[in-house]
């Protein structure tokens, strides 16, 4: 199944270097969890990160499904 990974602000550095924009679409196996995607791209988890699944805070154990958008950005406030 295909899901999108969208990274914001300085987390864009974790996208493949030839990525244009802030979003990539990737093919993943059934059973893949949010946490697995974070590991795959070395994206930090924990208090310094905000991770969203379709704009809503997930558990890292939540399974992704076809068409989902997983996004992440550093927990930094300003604006």
């Amino acid at each position, binding site marked *: 199944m295909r899901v999108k990974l*969208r990274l*914001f*602000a*300085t987390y*864009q*550095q974790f996208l493949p270097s030839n990525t244009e*924009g*802030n979003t990539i679409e990737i093919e993943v196996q059934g059973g893949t969890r949010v946490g697995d995607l974070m590991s795959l791209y070395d994206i930090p988890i924990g*208090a310094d*990160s*905000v991770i*969203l699944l*379709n*704009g*809503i*805070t997930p558990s890292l154990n939540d399974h992704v499904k076809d068409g989902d*958008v997983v*996004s992440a*950005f*550093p*927990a*930094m*406030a*300003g*604006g």
Partner: protein
Amino acid sequence: MDGWHGRILRINLSDENINIEEIDFHTAAEFIGGRGWAIKYLIDEMDPSVDPLSPDNMLIFATGPLTATPAPTGNRYMVVTKSPLTGALTNSNSGGSFPTEMKRTGFDMFIFEGRAESPVYLWINENDIKFRPASHVWGKTIPESEDTLIQETDPKAKVACIGPAGENLVKVASIMNDKHRAAGRSGVGAVMGSKNLKAVVVRGSVEPSFANPNKMRELSKQVNLEVGEDIKKGSSLREYGTAYVPPVTNELGILPTRNFQAGVFEGVDNISGNALKEKYLIRAKPCYRCPIACGRETEINEPDYKGAGEGPEYETIAALGSACGVDNLAAVTKANYLCNELGLDTISAGMTIACAMELSEKNIIPEEDIGFQLRFGDADAMIDLVQAMAHRDGFGEVLAEGSYRLAEKYGHPEYAITAKRLEFPGYDPRGSKGMGLLYATSNIGASHMAGDMAYAEVFGVPEKLDPLTTENKAALTKRFEDAFTIIDAAGLCVFLSVRYLFEPEVNLWPRKLTQIMNYATGADYDEESLLLAGERIFNLERLFLLKAGFTKKDDSLPLRMLNEPLAEGPAKGQVVELEEMLSEFYILRGWDESGVPTNEKLSELGLI
């Protein structure tokens, strides 16, 4: 005194009387400084029912005990007055270099009263205070005025001034300092203009003393180092400015789009920090001695939008961009430059134009009133209307009154997305319920800077909360409001203070902030008494509001927020369930069911 100078400069513009006053240590400490001192003086001396544009309104510039100190981001001041836009209190914050220089004049606070007979500026060079004619700069833009006034005074002087918008008593006019920094909200520029006060120029070398200079420097250095280490790992604010935010709020479905008709904007990628960095960024710009450097020095070379300056910030991009349906970053940036040059609040300017766009599309405003067909997405119209607003030109005359009076004039005040007539900033509260409570309860109207719940609901600071629930939001909103009050009053910037001077794990416990305040002032706060001081200031502001005629029914949000669910995005189907949060909030604040502080609460705070 330490930290504070303990000296207040009072200037009567009507008779050119100058008075230097002292403040006693107890009062200084009880009200912290800045925003706190200002409300104390306002409520003690001024009738809250005065006409904000009359000579009877007091205009106060107030620094804090930590302004002009090595404390991290110790570089801010507040403009406090009664607002002509809202009829409520306002306090408007700004950084840059002016606040530090102002503190170095040897005064903590300036109080301006009365009205000059003709345009003047004040040249405050420590104890040498002069009234100088300003007719030759009246009508000039902010940058032109600043250059002229610095030439006439001192090459190292700093300037806070109004532009044509403030001079024209535009109700959303700002006071600009260091050319590009804004005390933006609630029409403070119009109050200054109503006094015929074009500018305040300051110069000084009077550094504040400290109760414990070694510990003061040590802790300041420690925090700055900590910030520096984090920035090395990657700083979104340094790299992108606050412009990194539009894709984030868009992802949560709360980016104001077409006057808050939606929270998801199809053009968001064109107006993001990435685009700004690629196309127009020259360099990051810090306020004086700030280690973050979130400011943007930018330049546009495209002939249609040619210009240079600082910004745009997130709020500007939301208000002049997505809220207006505009996804042309050059146009948004150009409009931002114009607001800065003319002295207009980018938030209220953009949101007022957005309101006009919706009213126009719904045929509520006839085309002949505007002079053309005004539609969302028309970037050039947006720019033209910014200029018209500043000069009260044509339809700009109506826009200059702000979105509430605009919508009310055409019989549909419900399309003005405001609280207490102050235009919403860039977070749709239907997808961030705590922000809804904040907008409704802030003492100045809808301002994210009154206690930014988005920190928690959007950005995960101190921790990521579910933005769509109402449970426990009242308690955190109160804590954020009190925390921001303390930061404002102390003279610091919220960006650094919330993360590094409070303990996030313990519900925003001001551990390091208390230490720094004590090392600077010797006032012997503990965390509880500092939080209580924040509460004291907040309640005094509330009393001012009540005396000015505001009631519980003004602790409200537009019908769109209460009754019109968002149609798409993660917050689809959501409205703001304000009542339940508000009742809980009143109880936590120690207010009765009408939102009036009880005698018990006022007694606890030492206010009766």
